[in-house]
Protein backbone atom coordinates (compact mmCIF):
# COMPACT_ATOMS: atom_id res chain seq x y z
CA UNK A 1 0.00 0.00 0.00
CA UNK A 2 1.14 3.51 -0.72
CA UNK A 3 2.71 5.15 2.31
CA UNK A 4 4.04 2.09 4.11
CA UNK A 5 7.60 2.90 3.16
CA UNK A 6 7.12 6.48 4.32
CA UNK A 7 5.88 5.33 7.73
CA UNK A 8 8.76 2.90 8.05
CA UNK A 9 11.23 5.62 7.15
CA UNK A 10 9.70 8.01 9.64
CA UNK A 11 9.98 5.38 12.37
CA UNK A 12 13.65 4.84 11.50
CA UNK A 13 14.55 8.54 11.63
CA UNK A 14 12.46 8.98 14.76
CA UNK A 15 14.36 6.16 16.40
CA UNK A 16 17.63 7.81 15.42
CA UNK A 17 16.43 11.12 16.83
CA UNK A 18 15.50 9.69 20.23
CA UNK A 19 18.37 7.19 20.28
CA UNK A 20 21.07 9.76 19.65
CA UNK A 21 20.08 11.54 22.88
CA UNK A 22 20.14 8.60 25.27
CA UNK A 23 22.75 6.44 23.55
CA UNK A 24 25.93 8.43 22.82
CA UNK A 25 27.46 5.42 21.05
CA UNK A 26 25.24 6.22 18.06
CA UNK A 27 27.03 9.51 17.48
CA UNK A 28 30.14 8.55 15.59
CA UNK A 29 31.43 12.11 15.21
CA UNK A 30 34.78 12.77 16.90
CA UNK A 31 34.65 16.41 18.02
CA UNK A 32 38.14 17.18 16.82
CA UNK A 33 39.86 19.95 18.79
CA UNK A 34 38.60 18.58 22.11
CA UNK A 35 38.89 14.88 21.38
CA UNK A 36 41.19 13.12 18.95
CA UNK A 37 41.36 9.65 17.53
CA UNK A 38 44.21 7.48 18.89
CA UNK A 39 47.20 7.85 16.54
CA UNK A 40 47.75 5.07 14.00
CA UNK A 41 51.17 3.47 13.56
CA UNK A 42 50.95 3.51 9.76
CA UNK A 43 49.91 7.16 9.58
CA UNK A 44 52.32 9.38 7.65
CA UNK A 45 52.34 13.10 7.01
CA UNK A 46 55.70 14.83 6.46
CA UNK A 47 59.28 13.50 6.77
CA UNK A 48 61.56 14.06 9.77
CA UNK A 49 65.26 13.42 10.43
CA UNK A 50 66.27 10.85 13.03
CA UNK A 51 69.16 11.62 15.38
CA UNK A 52 70.94 9.48 17.97
CA UNK A 53 72.18 10.67 21.31
CA UNK A 54 71.39 13.89 23.09
CA UNK A 55 72.40 16.61 20.64
CA UNK A 56 70.00 16.86 17.69
CA UNK A 57 72.47 18.40 15.27
CA UNK A 58 75.52 16.36 16.22
CA UNK A 59 73.68 13.06 16.21
CA UNK A 60 71.94 13.39 12.84
CA UNK A 61 72.15 10.15 10.86
CA UNK A 62 71.92 12.08 7.60
CA UNK A 63 75.07 12.04 5.49
CA UNK A 64 73.86 14.57 2.91
CA UNK A 65 73.99 11.96 0.16
CA UNK A 66 71.11 13.87 -1.58
CA UNK A 67 69.36 10.70 -2.76
CA UNK A 68 66.13 11.89 -1.20
CA UNK A 69 66.57 15.31 -2.77
CA UNK A 70 66.89 13.74 -6.20
CA UNK A 71 64.08 11.25 -5.72
CA UNK A 72 61.56 13.69 -4.31
CA UNK A 73 58.78 14.02 -6.94
CA UNK A 74 57.73 17.39 -5.61
CA UNK A 75 61.29 18.78 -5.31
CA UNK A 76 60.58 20.04 -1.84
CA UNK A 77 63.93 19.03 -0.27
CA UNK A 78 67.01 21.24 -0.36
CA UNK A 79 70.32 19.84 0.88
CA UNK A 80 73.66 21.66 1.07
CA UNK A 81 76.63 19.49 2.05
CA UNK A 82 78.97 20.55 4.79
CA UNK A 83 82.65 20.96 3.80
CA UNK A 84 84.12 18.92 6.65
CA UNK A 85 83.70 15.22 7.23
CA UNK A 86 82.85 13.76 10.59
CA UNK A 87 82.91 10.11 11.69
CA UNK A 88 79.53 8.39 11.73
CA UNK A 89 78.38 5.53 13.99
CA UNK A 90 80.57 3.04 12.14
CA UNK A 91 83.61 5.25 12.43
CA UNK A 92 83.54 6.08 8.73
CA UNK A 93 84.17 9.69 7.73
CA UNK A 94 80.99 11.15 6.23
CA UNK A 95 79.65 14.50 5.13
CA UNK A 96 76.82 16.05 7.07
CA UNK A 97 74.14 18.42 5.84
CA UNK A 98 74.88 22.09 6.34
CA UNK A 99 71.35 22.92 5.19
CA UNK A 100 68.46 20.47 5.14
CA UNK A 101 65.19 22.21 4.29
CA UNK A 102 61.79 20.70 3.47
CA UNK A 103 59.02 22.93 2.16
CA UNK A 104 56.08 21.21 3.81
CA UNK A 105 53.66 23.28 1.79
CA UNK A 106 54.95 21.43 -1.29
CA UNK A 107 55.56 18.03 0.34
CA UNK A 108 52.80 15.61 -0.55
CA UNK A 109 53.70 12.98 2.01
CA UNK A 110 54.43 10.22 -0.49
CA UNK A 111 57.19 8.72 1.67
CA UNK A 112 59.60 8.06 -1.24
CA UNK A 113 62.41 9.89 0.60
CA UNK A 114 62.03 7.53 3.55
CA UNK A 115 62.04 4.52 1.25
CA UNK A 116 65.21 5.41 -0.62
CA UNK A 117 67.29 6.59 2.36
CA UNK A 118 70.18 4.08 2.81
CA UNK A 119 71.08 5.43 6.26
CA UNK A 120 67.63 5.10 7.91
CA UNK A 121 67.86 8.79 8.51
CA UNK A 122 64.73 10.26 6.99
CA UNK A 123 61.43 8.79 8.21
CA UNK A 124 57.78 9.74 7.97
CA UNK A 125 56.25 11.68 10.86
CA UNK A 126 52.62 11.64 11.95
CA UNK A 127 52.17 15.22 13.20
CA UNK A 128 49.28 16.88 11.41
CA UNK A 129 48.50 20.22 13.07
CA UNK A 130 50.88 22.10 10.78
CA UNK A 131 48.72 25.09 9.86
CA UNK A 132 50.54 28.40 10.14
CA UNK A 133 49.24 31.95 10.16
CA UNK A 134 51.87 33.02 7.64
CA UNK A 135 53.92 31.42 4.90
CA UNK A 136 56.53 29.93 7.19
CA UNK A 137 56.16 26.47 5.79
CA UNK A 138 59.85 25.70 5.15
CA UNK A 139 61.13 23.44 7.89
CA UNK A 140 64.89 23.62 8.59
CA UNK A 141 66.96 20.78 9.97
CA UNK A 142 66.47 22.09 13.52
CA UNK A 143 62.71 21.69 13.07
CA UNK A 144 63.06 18.36 11.33
CA UNK A 145 65.47 16.64 13.73
CA UNK A 146 63.69 14.25 16.08
CA UNK A 147 65.20 11.70 18.40
CA UNK A 148 65.37 7.96 17.87
CA UNK A 149 63.19 7.57 20.97
CA UNK A 150 60.46 9.51 19.19
CA UNK A 151 60.88 7.24 16.16
CA UNK A 152 60.53 4.19 18.42
CA UNK A 153 57.42 5.68 19.92
CA UNK A 154 55.55 6.42 16.68
CA UNK A 155 56.71 3.43 14.59
CA UNK A 156 57.73 0.76 17.15
CA UNK A 157 58.02 -2.11 14.68
CA UNK A 158 60.10 -0.32 12.06
CA UNK A 159 62.31 1.39 14.65
CA UNK A 160 63.11 -1.91 16.37
CA UNK A 161 64.12 -3.49 13.03
CA UNK A 162 66.31 -0.48 12.21
CA UNK A 163 67.93 -0.61 15.65
CA UNK A 164 68.74 -4.32 15.28
CA UNK A 165 70.22 -3.81 11.79
CA UNK A 166 72.34 -0.87 12.93
CA UNK A 167 73.59 -2.70 16.01
CA UNK A 168 74.54 -5.63 13.78
CA UNK A 169 76.43 -3.36 11.38
CA UNK A 170 78.16 -1.65 14.27
CA UNK A 171 79.18 -5.02 15.74
CA UNK A 172 80.55 -6.17 12.38
CA UNK A 173 82.45 -2.94 11.93
CA UNK A 174 84.02 -3.23 15.38
CA UNK A 175 84.90 -6.87 14.75
CA UNK A 176 86.56 -5.85 11.48
CA UNK A 177 88.42 -3.05 13.22
CA UNK A 178 89.58 -5.45 15.88
CA UNK A 179 90.51 -8.03 13.24
CA UNK A 180 92.60 -5.70 11.03
CA UNK A 181 95.31 -4.73 13.56
CA UNK A 182 95.61 -8.30 14.81
CA UNK A 183 97.49 -9.79 11.80
CA UNK A 184 99.79 -6.74 11.57
CA UNK A 185 102.11 -7.68 14.39
CA UNK A 186 102.12 -11.29 13.21
CA UNK A 187 103.54 -10.41 9.78
CA UNK A 188 107.12 -9.68 10.63
Amino acid sequence: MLGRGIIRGLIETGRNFCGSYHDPARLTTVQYPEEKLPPQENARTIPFLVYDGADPLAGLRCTACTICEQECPAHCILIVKDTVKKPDYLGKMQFHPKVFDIDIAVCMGCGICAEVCPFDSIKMDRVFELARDRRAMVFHKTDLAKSNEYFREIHPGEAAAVDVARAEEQRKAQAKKAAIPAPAPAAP
Partner: protein
Amino acid sequence: MNALDHVFISVLHKLAALVPASVQPLVSMLLIIAGLMAVFGTCFALTTILERKTLGRMQNRFGPNRVGPFGLFQPLADGVKMLIKEDIVPFSADKVVHFLAPVALTVPIWLAFSVLPFGRNMTAIELDSGILFFFAIGSASELAVFMAGWSSQNKYSLVGAMRAIAQMISYEVPLVLASVPVLIAASSLSLPDIVQAQSGFALGFVPRWNVFTPWGLAGFALFLTAAAAESNRCPFDLPEGESELIAGYLTEYSGFKYALFFLGEYLGLFAVTGLAVTLFLGGWQAPAKWLEWFPSWGWFGLKFSALIFLFIWARATLPRLRLDQLLTFAWKFLVPLALVNLVVAVAWWQSGAWQFASALEVRWLLGAGLLAVSYVWLGRGWNGGKSTLRQYSYAE
Protein backbone atom coordinates in the same frame (compact mmCIF):
# COMPACT_ATOMS: atom_id res chain seq x y z
CA MET B 1 -10.01 34.89 29.88
CA ASN B 2 -6.96 35.68 31.95
CA ALA B 3 -4.41 38.46 31.80
CA LEU B 4 -1.72 36.25 30.28
CA ASP B 5 -4.03 35.42 27.40
CA HIS B 6 -4.51 39.10 26.72
CA VAL B 7 -0.96 40.25 27.35
CA PHE B 8 -0.15 41.16 23.74
CA ILE B 9 -3.41 43.01 23.20
CA SER B 10 -3.14 45.02 26.43
CA VAL B 11 0.49 45.93 25.66
CA LEU B 12 -0.63 47.06 22.22
CA HIS B 13 -3.42 49.18 23.69
CA LYS B 14 -1.10 50.76 26.26
CA LEU B 15 1.50 51.62 23.61
CA ALA B 16 -1.11 53.02 21.24
CA ALA B 17 -2.57 55.17 24.04
CA LEU B 18 0.72 57.09 24.20
CA VAL B 19 0.04 58.88 20.90
CA PRO B 20 -2.79 61.28 19.95
CA ALA B 21 -6.08 59.65 19.07
CA SER B 22 -5.97 60.73 15.44
CA VAL B 23 -2.90 58.61 14.62
CA GLN B 24 -3.78 55.72 16.92
CA PRO B 25 -5.09 53.34 14.22
CA LEU B 26 -1.98 53.87 12.14
CA VAL B 27 0.37 53.43 15.09
CA SER B 28 -1.36 50.30 16.33
CA MET B 29 -1.17 48.80 12.84
CA LEU B 30 2.56 49.60 12.68
CA LEU B 31 3.02 48.02 16.11
CA ILE B 32 1.25 44.87 14.96
CA ILE B 33 3.46 44.70 11.87
CA ALA B 34 6.58 45.19 13.99
CA GLY B 35 5.41 42.50 16.40
CA LEU B 36 4.68 40.00 13.64
CA MET B 37 8.03 40.65 12.00
CA ALA B 38 9.87 40.31 15.31
CA VAL B 39 8.13 37.10 16.32
CA PHE B 40 8.34 35.35 12.98
CA GLY B 41 11.82 36.70 12.25
CA THR B 42 13.01 35.14 15.51
CA CYS B 43 11.04 32.05 14.65
CA PHE B 44 12.89 31.88 11.32
CA ALA B 45 16.29 32.18 13.02
CA LEU B 46 15.39 29.54 15.60
CA THR B 47 13.96 27.20 13.00
CA THR B 48 17.12 27.26 10.90
CA ILE B 49 19.29 26.20 13.82
CA LEU B 50 16.80 23.74 15.30
CA GLU B 51 16.18 22.22 11.88
CA ARG B 52 19.88 21.67 11.34
CA LYS B 53 20.27 20.18 14.81
CA THR B 54 17.23 17.94 14.39
CA LEU B 55 18.38 16.77 10.97
CA GLY B 56 21.76 16.02 12.49
CA ARG B 57 20.25 13.99 15.32
CA MET B 58 18.08 12.08 12.87
CA GLN B 59 21.24 11.13 10.98
CA ASN B 60 23.14 10.35 14.20
CA ARG B 61 25.24 13.50 14.04
CA PHE B 62 25.55 16.44 16.42
CA GLY B 63 24.55 19.23 14.08
CA PRO B 64 25.97 22.74 14.56
CA ASN B 65 27.35 23.04 18.10
CA ARG B 66 30.31 25.41 17.80
CA VAL B 67 28.91 28.95 17.96
CA GLY B 68 27.77 29.80 21.48
CA PRO B 69 26.17 27.39 23.95
CA PHE B 70 24.87 24.34 22.03
CA GLY B 71 25.50 26.27 18.81
CA LEU B 72 22.52 28.52 19.49
CA PHE B 73 24.26 31.63 18.09
CA GLN B 74 24.69 29.96 14.71
CA PRO B 75 21.86 31.97 13.06
CA LEU B 76 23.58 35.15 14.23
CA ALA B 77 26.84 34.09 12.61
CA ASP B 78 24.98 33.05 9.46
CA GLY B 79 23.17 36.38 9.35
CA VAL B 80 26.40 38.36 9.70
CA LYS B 81 27.96 36.23 6.98
CA MET B 82 25.01 36.83 4.65
CA LEU B 83 25.02 40.58 5.31
CA ILE B 84 28.70 41.16 4.63
CA LYS B 85 28.93 38.88 1.61
CA GLU B 86 29.47 40.48 -1.77
CA ASP B 87 26.27 40.86 -3.75
CA ILE B 88 27.03 39.64 -7.26
CA VAL B 89 24.65 40.42 -10.12
CA PRO B 90 25.42 38.54 -13.35
CA PHE B 91 26.59 40.71 -16.23
CA SER B 92 23.78 39.66 -18.56
CA ALA B 93 21.06 39.64 -15.91
CA ASP B 94 17.99 41.82 -16.08
CA LYS B 95 19.15 44.00 -13.20
CA VAL B 96 15.82 45.51 -12.17
CA VAL B 97 13.88 42.24 -12.14
CA HIS B 98 16.81 40.47 -10.54
CA PHE B 99 16.69 43.01 -7.72
CA LEU B 100 12.91 42.99 -7.39
CA ALA B 101 12.44 39.21 -7.23
CA PRO B 102 13.47 38.65 -3.58
CA VAL B 103 11.38 41.64 -2.50
CA ALA B 104 8.41 40.42 -4.49
CA LEU B 105 8.73 37.04 -2.78
CA THR B 106 8.95 38.33 0.78
CA VAL B 107 6.28 41.06 0.77
CA PRO B 108 3.20 38.90 -0.07
CA ILE B 109 4.26 36.28 2.42
CA TRP B 110 4.37 38.86 5.20
CA LEU B 111 0.92 39.99 4.07
CA ALA B 112 -0.38 36.43 4.43
CA PHE B 113 0.33 36.59 8.17
CA SER B 114 -2.12 39.46 8.56
CA VAL B 115 -5.23 37.26 8.37
CA LEU B 116 -4.09 34.38 10.62
CA PRO B 117 -5.62 34.24 14.12
CA PHE B 118 -2.66 33.68 16.45
CA GLY B 119 -4.78 33.72 19.61
CA ARG B 120 -8.06 34.88 21.04
CA ASN B 121 -8.83 38.25 19.33
CA MET B 122 -5.32 38.25 17.88
CA THR B 123 -5.95 38.66 14.17
CA ALA B 124 -4.28 41.63 12.54
CA ILE B 125 -6.99 42.14 9.89
CA GLU B 126 -10.30 40.38 10.42
CA LEU B 127 -11.20 39.94 6.79
CA ASP B 128 -14.54 38.27 6.04
CA SER B 129 -12.87 36.34 3.23
CA GLY B 130 -9.55 35.81 4.99
CA ILE B 131 -8.79 32.40 3.51
CA LEU B 132 -9.41 33.70 0.00
CA PHE B 133 -7.01 36.55 0.67
CA PHE B 134 -4.46 34.08 2.03
CA PHE B 135 -4.51 31.89 -1.09
CA ALA B 136 -4.55 34.87 -3.44
CA ILE B 137 -1.54 36.41 -1.74
CA GLY B 138 0.20 33.06 -1.46
CA SER B 139 0.04 32.48 -5.19
CA ALA B 140 1.92 35.74 -5.78
CA SER B 141 5.13 34.02 -4.72
CA GLU B 142 5.10 32.04 -7.97
CA LEU B 143 5.58 35.26 -9.87
CA ALA B 144 8.59 36.16 -7.72
CA VAL B 145 10.15 32.74 -8.28
CA PHE B 146 9.74 33.08 -12.02
CA MET B 147 11.11 36.62 -11.93
CA ALA B 148 14.20 35.26 -10.20
CA GLY B 149 14.66 32.43 -12.67
CA TRP B 150 14.02 34.52 -15.76
CA SER B 151 16.10 37.54 -14.86
CA SER B 152 19.19 35.55 -13.91
CA GLN B 153 19.87 34.56 -17.57
CA ASN B 154 21.09 31.19 -16.42
CA LYS B 155 19.86 27.83 -17.65
CA TYR B 156 19.78 26.31 -14.19
CA SER B 157 17.83 29.25 -12.83
CA LEU B 158 15.34 29.02 -15.67
CA VAL B 159 14.84 25.27 -15.36
CA GLY B 160 14.49 25.65 -11.59
CA ALA B 161 11.92 28.40 -12.02
CA MET B 162 9.98 26.36 -14.57
CA ARG B 163 9.88 23.44 -12.20
CA ALA B 164 8.80 25.72 -9.38
CA ILE B 165 5.94 27.13 -11.46
CA ALA B 166 4.78 23.67 -12.55
CA GLN B 167 4.95 22.42 -8.98
CA MET B 168 3.35 25.38 -7.25
CA ILE B 169 0.46 25.66 -9.68
CA SER B 170 -0.17 21.91 -9.53
CA TYR B 171 -0.13 21.76 -5.77
CA GLU B 172 -2.25 24.83 -5.25
CA VAL B 173 -5.23 22.80 -6.51
CA PRO B 174 -5.10 20.06 -3.82
CA LEU B 175 -4.16 22.69 -1.23
CA VAL B 176 -7.34 24.68 -1.87
CA LEU B 177 -9.50 21.59 -2.45
CA ALA B 178 -8.35 20.13 0.88
CA SER B 179 -9.40 23.27 2.71
CA VAL B 180 -12.81 23.61 1.03
CA PRO B 181 -14.51 21.03 3.37
CA VAL B 182 -13.49 23.19 6.31
CA LEU B 183 -15.19 26.18 4.72
CA ILE B 184 -18.32 24.08 4.20
CA ALA B 185 -18.26 22.94 7.84
CA ALA B 186 -17.74 26.44 9.20
CA SER B 187 -19.99 28.13 6.60
CA SER B 188 -17.54 31.00 6.57
CA LEU B 189 -14.44 32.24 4.78
CA SER B 190 -13.24 34.17 7.79
CA LEU B 191 -10.42 32.49 9.70
CA PRO B 192 -11.49 33.62 13.21
CA ASP B 193 -14.95 32.23 12.43
CA ILE B 194 -13.41 28.92 11.35
CA VAL B 195 -11.57 28.70 14.66
CA GLN B 196 -14.75 29.63 16.54
CA ALA B 197 -16.65 26.87 14.68
CA GLN B 198 -14.21 24.30 16.08
CA SER B 199 -14.81 25.22 19.72
CA GLY B 200 -16.50 22.92 22.21
CA PHE B 201 -16.13 19.23 22.90
CA ALA B 202 -17.89 16.21 21.44
CA LEU B 203 -18.87 13.47 23.92
CA GLY B 204 -17.55 15.75 26.61
CA PHE B 205 -13.81 15.28 25.97
CA VAL B 206 -12.98 15.09 22.23
CA PRO B 207 -12.41 18.63 20.96
CA ARG B 208 -14.51 19.51 17.94
CA TRP B 209 -11.44 20.11 15.78
CA ASN B 210 -11.81 19.32 12.13
CA VAL B 211 -8.96 16.83 12.27
CA PHE B 212 -11.13 14.51 14.41
CA THR B 213 -13.53 13.80 11.55
CA PRO B 214 -12.87 11.44 8.63
CA TRP B 215 -12.81 14.22 6.07
CA GLY B 216 -10.78 16.42 8.41
CA LEU B 217 -8.10 13.80 8.94
CA ALA B 218 -7.77 13.11 5.22
CA GLY B 219 -7.93 16.82 4.47
CA PHE B 220 -5.21 17.50 7.05
CA ALA B 221 -2.89 14.92 5.46
CA LEU B 222 -3.63 16.25 1.97
CA PHE B 223 -3.15 19.81 3.14
CA LEU B 224 0.21 19.07 4.77
CA THR B 225 1.47 17.24 1.67
CA ALA B 226 0.40 20.06 -0.61
CA ALA B 227 1.79 22.61 1.85
CA ALA B 228 5.20 20.96 1.77
CA ALA B 229 5.17 21.17 -2.02
CA GLU B 230 3.82 24.71 -1.99
CA SER B 231 6.68 25.93 0.20
CA ASN B 232 9.33 23.91 -1.70
CA ARG B 233 10.12 21.70 1.24
CA CYS B 234 11.71 18.28 1.05
CA PRO B 235 10.70 15.87 -0.51
CA PHE B 236 9.27 18.35 -3.02
CA ASP B 237 12.28 20.66 -3.23
CA LEU B 238 12.93 20.00 -6.91
CA PRO B 239 13.13 23.67 -7.89
CA GLU B 240 16.43 23.87 -6.01
CA GLY B 241 17.51 20.26 -6.29
CA GLU B 242 21.24 20.84 -5.84
CA SER B 243 22.16 17.50 -7.34
CA GLU B 244 20.60 18.46 -10.69
CA LEU B 245 20.23 22.22 -10.77
CA ILE B 246 22.94 23.65 -8.46
CA ALA B 247 20.40 25.76 -6.55
CA GLY B 248 17.59 26.21 -9.06
CA TYR B 249 16.31 29.75 -9.28
CA LEU B 250 18.65 30.77 -6.44
CA THR B 251 21.78 29.97 -8.45
CA GLU B 252 22.67 33.55 -9.34
CA TYR B 253 21.76 35.04 -5.97
CA SER B 254 24.23 35.79 -3.23
CA GLY B 255 24.50 37.78 -0.04
CA PHE B 256 21.43 39.42 1.35
CA LYS B 257 19.21 38.68 -1.64
CA TYR B 258 19.83 34.99 -1.12
CA ALA B 259 19.03 35.47 2.57
CA LEU B 260 15.74 37.12 1.58
CA PHE B 261 14.83 34.13 -0.57
CA PHE B 262 15.68 31.84 2.29
CA LEU B 263 13.58 33.96 4.64
CA GLY B 264 10.71 33.97 2.18
CA GLU B 265 10.80 30.21 1.88
CA TYR B 266 10.65 29.67 5.62
CA LEU B 267 8.01 32.35 6.12
CA GLY B 268 5.91 30.69 3.44
CA LEU B 269 6.20 27.47 5.37
CA PHE B 270 5.22 29.23 8.60
CA ALA B 271 2.22 30.90 6.99
CA VAL B 272 0.87 27.71 5.47
CA THR B 273 1.55 25.81 8.72
CA GLY B 274 -0.34 28.50 10.63
CA LEU B 275 -3.21 28.02 8.19
CA ALA B 276 -3.12 24.24 8.73
CA VAL B 277 -3.34 24.81 12.50
CA THR B 278 -6.24 27.20 12.00
CA LEU B 279 -8.18 25.03 9.58
CA PHE B 280 -7.73 21.56 11.06
CA LEU B 281 -6.26 21.71 14.57
CA GLY B 282 -8.74 24.12 16.08
CA GLY B 283 -6.52 27.18 15.83
CA TRP B 284 -5.74 28.58 19.29
CA GLN B 285 -8.26 26.37 21.12
CA ALA B 286 -7.04 24.26 24.02
CA PRO B 287 -7.30 20.48 23.50
CA ALA B 288 -9.16 19.97 26.82
CA LYS B 289 -11.35 22.00 29.14
CA TRP B 290 -8.95 21.86 32.09
CA LEU B 291 -6.06 23.09 29.91
CA GLU B 292 -7.70 26.40 29.10
CA TRP B 293 -5.61 28.24 31.72
CA PHE B 294 -2.76 28.10 29.19
CA PRO B 295 -2.87 31.22 26.95
CA SER B 296 -4.47 30.78 23.56
CA TRP B 297 -1.42 32.06 21.67
CA GLY B 298 0.62 29.43 23.55
CA TRP B 299 -1.61 26.69 22.19
CA PHE B 300 -1.25 28.09 18.71
CA GLY B 301 2.53 28.15 19.19
CA LEU B 302 2.62 24.57 20.44
CA LYS B 303 0.57 23.20 17.55
CA PHE B 304 2.59 25.30 15.14
CA SER B 305 5.92 23.97 16.48
CA ALA B 306 4.65 20.40 16.35
CA LEU B 307 3.77 20.78 12.68
CA ILE B 308 7.12 22.42 11.90
CA PHE B 309 8.81 19.47 13.60
CA LEU B 310 6.75 17.15 11.40
CA PHE B 311 8.05 18.95 8.30
CA ILE B 312 11.64 18.65 9.53
CA TRP B 313 11.08 14.98 10.29
CA ALA B 314 9.76 14.40 6.77
CA ARG B 315 12.76 16.24 5.38
CA ALA B 316 15.15 13.96 7.25
CA THR B 317 13.32 10.88 5.99
CA LEU B 318 12.17 11.25 2.42
CA PRO B 319 14.29 11.44 -0.72
CA ARG B 320 13.53 13.93 -3.46
CA LEU B 321 10.96 12.99 -6.12
CA ARG B 322 11.53 13.05 -9.86
CA LEU B 323 9.68 15.82 -11.69
CA ASP B 324 7.20 13.56 -13.52
CA GLN B 325 6.54 11.65 -10.27
CA LEU B 326 5.91 14.95 -8.56
CA LEU B 327 3.32 16.12 -11.08
CA THR B 328 1.72 12.68 -11.35
CA PHE B 329 1.41 12.60 -7.60
CA ALA B 330 -0.42 15.92 -7.60
CA TRP B 331 -2.80 15.35 -10.50
CA LYS B 332 -3.47 11.62 -10.30
CA PHE B 333 -3.46 11.13 -6.55
CA LEU B 334 -3.89 14.27 -4.48
CA VAL B 335 -6.51 16.01 -6.62
CA PRO B 336 -8.84 12.97 -7.00
CA LEU B 337 -8.45 12.18 -3.31
CA ALA B 338 -9.27 15.78 -2.42
CA LEU B 339 -12.40 15.56 -4.59
CA VAL B 340 -13.45 12.32 -2.87
CA ASN B 341 -12.79 14.06 0.42
CA LEU B 342 -15.09 16.88 -0.65
CA VAL B 343 -17.86 14.36 -1.34
CA VAL B 344 -17.28 12.73 2.05
CA ALA B 345 -17.39 16.12 3.77
CA VAL B 346 -20.67 17.04 2.13
CA ALA B 347 -22.13 13.62 3.01
CA TRP B 348 -20.93 14.07 6.60
CA TRP B 349 -22.55 17.47 6.77
CA GLN B 350 -25.81 16.23 5.24
CA SER B 351 -25.98 13.17 7.50
CA GLY B 352 -25.60 15.36 10.60
CA ALA B 353 -29.39 15.27 10.91
CA TRP B 354 -29.53 11.47 11.35
CA GLN B 355 -31.21 10.60 14.60
CA PHE B 356 -31.00 6.79 14.98
CA ALA B 357 -29.04 5.06 17.72
CA SER B 358 -25.50 4.67 16.38
CA ALA B 359 -25.61 7.41 13.76
CA LEU B 360 -22.09 8.72 14.58
CA GLU B 361 -20.48 5.31 14.17
CA VAL B 362 -22.25 4.71 10.86
CA ARG B 363 -21.23 8.14 9.57
CA TRP B 364 -17.62 7.51 10.61
CA LEU B 365 -17.59 4.07 9.02
CA LEU B 366 -19.04 5.33 5.75
CA GLY B 367 -16.75 8.36 5.51
CA ALA B 368 -13.54 6.65 6.55
CA GLY B 369 -14.38 3.57 4.42
CA LEU B 370 -14.91 5.61 1.28
CA LEU B 371 -11.69 7.51 1.88
CA ALA B 372 -9.68 4.37 2.65
CA VAL B 373 -10.95 2.55 -0.46
CA SER B 374 -10.15 5.47 -2.72
CA TYR B 375 -6.76 5.93 -1.03
CA VAL B 376 -5.76 2.33 -1.67
CA TRP B 377 -7.20 2.33 -5.18
CA LEU B 378 -5.62 5.62 -6.21
CA GLY B 379 -2.36 4.66 -4.55
CA ARG B 380 -2.15 1.49 -6.61
CA GLY B 381 -2.94 3.42 -9.74
CA TRP B 382 -0.24 5.90 -8.95
CA ASN B 383 2.38 3.24 -8.39
CA GLY B 384 1.50 1.81 -11.80
CA GLY B 385 1.41 -1.74 -10.44
CA LYS B 386 4.51 -3.11 -12.12
CA SER B 387 7.55 -1.00 -12.81
CA THR B 388 8.64 -1.01 -16.42
CA LEU B 389 12.10 -0.47 -17.82
CA ARG B 390 12.50 3.17 -18.68
CA GLN B 391 13.16 3.98 -22.33
CA TYR B 392 15.71 6.74 -22.88
CA SER B 393 15.36 8.51 -26.20
CA TYR B 394 18.60 10.47 -26.24
CA ALA B 395 20.94 8.85 -23.79
CA GLU B 396 21.69 5.70 -25.82
